[in-house]
């Protein structure tokens, strides 16, 4: 009885492994297929925050950018997310008062002057952007906001992978134990 039970469990585990793999594959393929559409939809929704006369231009520009990531849909989606987050700031620029005569003046605080000058001299923009321009508190908030959807997707993927790995391990253990039990039965 125990041998039959073990064989049934092993078979069920193998079936679960196969179904799990197929399911993970389907979900992954579907998500890959959905992401470009989500990105485009995100861009279109974000454009509603812009003045009507600027919407078509920005949409086309943003979609052209997202299209650059056609082979990396998740990166494209994150790019669209970043663009959507900055659309209000773009709207402020587009609705700002018309420019007067461009009078050049450096202005600003001394620290920023040094930072900009250092950037001009060294062109090490990345380090300076992170170290000087982005205030730590703002940066932390940005990280939290951006990390939420990424964490959600990441957690879902990890759970799916863990489930697959667990079912494979369970299947292997069950098959091995069944074989051992069958061998033991034969020895008797």
């Amino acid at each position, binding site marked *: 009885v125990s041998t039959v039970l073990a064989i049934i469990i092993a078979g069920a585990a193998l079936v679960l492994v196969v179904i799990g793999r197929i399911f993970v594959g389907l979900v992954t393929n579907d998500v890959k297929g959905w992401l470009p559409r989500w990105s485009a939809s995100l861009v279109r929704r974000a454009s509603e925050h812009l003045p009507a006369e600027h919407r078509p231009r920005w949409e086309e520009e943003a979609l052209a950018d997202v299209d650059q990531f056609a082979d990396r849909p998740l990166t494209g989606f994150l790019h669209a997310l*970043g663009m959507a987050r900055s659309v209000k700031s773009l709207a402020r620029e587009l609705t700002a008062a018309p*420019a007067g005569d461009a*009078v050049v003046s450096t*202005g600003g605080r001394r620290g920023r002057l040094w930072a900009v000058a250092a*950037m001009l001299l060294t062109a090490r923009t990345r380090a300076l952007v992170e170290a000087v321009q982005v205030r730590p508190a703002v940066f932390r908030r940005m990280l939290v906001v951006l990390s939420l959807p990424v964490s959600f997707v990441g957690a879902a993927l990890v759970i799916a992978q863990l489930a697959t790995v667990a079912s494979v391990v369970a299947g292997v253990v069950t098959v091995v134990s069944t074989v051992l039990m069958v061998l033991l039965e034969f020895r008797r």
Partner: protein
Amino acid sequence: MIEKQPRMTMQTMAVLGTMLQAPTADWYGLELATKVDLKSGTIYPILARLERFGWLSSTWEDAEPSEEKRPRRRIYKLTGEGERAAREVANELLAKVAPAGARGAAWGLKPGGQTA
């Protein structure tokens, strides 16, 4: 209130600095953002601001989307006024923080408002 000049953030200066390295070149938004290492979306408010002040001009590229199999890109270019003004800003900064230096030579800049 009418602004007299574009707000000069570090990112704005980085964008202008990059464009000044090839003042006659055509750029599109993502290309500039990648070159300057800006986060996605940051570039467009900057480009809009500079365009509003006439420092940049923009046009759609001549490519046909159906042939290229991708949407058209918006091409940005420094205007003569933009190039002059950006160099002046950079020179003023250099004059303030490095009066005796000639370290801006890589950008064709000299302290004291002169262009190399």
